[in-house]
């Protein structure tokens, strides 16, 4: 399955690092938060994903071509982002490859960042943030740090597969999810995720600039949000609104 996917390393990859995954999803929360982290911490591009399962797209930044799905890092942190809505047929092998690569690089922990869609988001000034974990020990750690736990519910898409493959490969993983708009870019939710991330890790950034740039980000993110919405419809993302039955 992974034959047509490979992660090409451009620089030495740190081991024992925390790996943040922020792919386009609900409210683009993960992508906005992770991009902001990359920019604020001056992380450098260390690897990229090469796959014929992804559309034939390159992104130009400062005149130079970059793969849309890229990996940044420093000595302690690895950050995975995609400037492309990952097509649904590719999402399984891509997430599997990312987790497998993280395991090979001996990451300390995978942190998947995203949003939880809520219908009345516009009436909420400060979105709440919830956590989930791949094992009880990590869940206790989140609890002790004061992060609310998402006790029951469905997660669909990149976070779901990160959890699935992390559990099967015994890689520690947590998901940090903020209440957000479903199909409108939500920089405020991204800021709240980063605020909570700073409580449970040593990854600390000043979120004030992100909040100030909120309107600009919402204007710039319209196109990727639209394309992400198409993929979310295909993966039945709206199931996150459903109530699970477990008696």
């Amino acid at each position, binding site marked *: 399955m992974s034959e047509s996917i490979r992660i090409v390393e451009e620089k030495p990859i740190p081991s024992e690092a925390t790996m943040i995954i922020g792919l386009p999803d609900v409210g683009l929360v993960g992508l906005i938060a992770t991009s902001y982290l990359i920019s604020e911490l001056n992380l450098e591009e260390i690897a990229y994903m090469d796959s014929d399962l992804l559309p034939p797209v390159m992104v130009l930044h400062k005149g130079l071509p970059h793969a849309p799905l890229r990996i940044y890092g420093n000595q302690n942190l690895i950050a995975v982002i995609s400037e492309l809505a990952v097509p649904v047929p590719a999402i399984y092998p891509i997430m599997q490859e990312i987790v497998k690569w993280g395991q090979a690089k001996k990451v300390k922990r995978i942190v998947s960042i995203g949003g939880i869609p809520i219908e009345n*988001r516009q009436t909420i000034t400060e979105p709440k943030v919830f956590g989930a974990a791949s094992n009880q020990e990590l869940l206790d750690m989140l609890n002790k740090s004061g992060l609310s736990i998402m006790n029951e519910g469905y997660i669909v898409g990149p976070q779901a597969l990160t959890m699935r493959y992390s559990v099967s490969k015994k890689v520690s993983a947590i998901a940090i999810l903020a209440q957000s708009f479903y199909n*409108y870019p939500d920089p405020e939710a991204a800021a709240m995720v980063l605020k909570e991330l700073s409580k449970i890790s040593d990854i600390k950034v000043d979120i004030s600039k992100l909040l100030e740039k909120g*309107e600009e980000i919402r*204007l710039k993110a*319209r196109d990727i*949000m639209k394309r992400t919405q198409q993929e979310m419809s295909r993966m039945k993302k709206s199931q996150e609104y459903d109530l699970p039955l477990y008696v």
Partner: protein
Amino acid sequence: MSEKQRKHSIFDIMNEYREEFETLADELMASAFSEGPSWNTETCCLQALSNVIITPREVIVTADLPNIKPESVKVEAVDENLIEITAKMKKKVRFADLGIDHRQGEFSSLHCQGRVHVAIDTEKMKISFNGGILEVRFPRKNRHKSE
């Protein structure tokens, strides 16, 4: 069983229906997310993201309108099924402001249209604007009495 008979088994018929349904769903998806730029340099408009939610009692149209003057928001019913939303921006945005140097143009408003497939009473719409999100609620017409 002959090849001809096998082709017309209940499973083949179900498969045909499924394929037709998938084709229709793909067409609907394509029409809902039409390809094309999210900007128009002639009208100086950027396309706003919007949503239409239909409930048993009302239709709720929302739009993400960052960087606009709330007092400039206009909501119009173009016809029975089409709602148009426009709003002027607080300050003009050029391609260069969005990091794009290979195009020229500036934008002074946001615009979107929402297609509504049920009858609504446009004269009783209620508009609210909160955190950059416009919400317009229309009561539905011709609802069954049992509702």
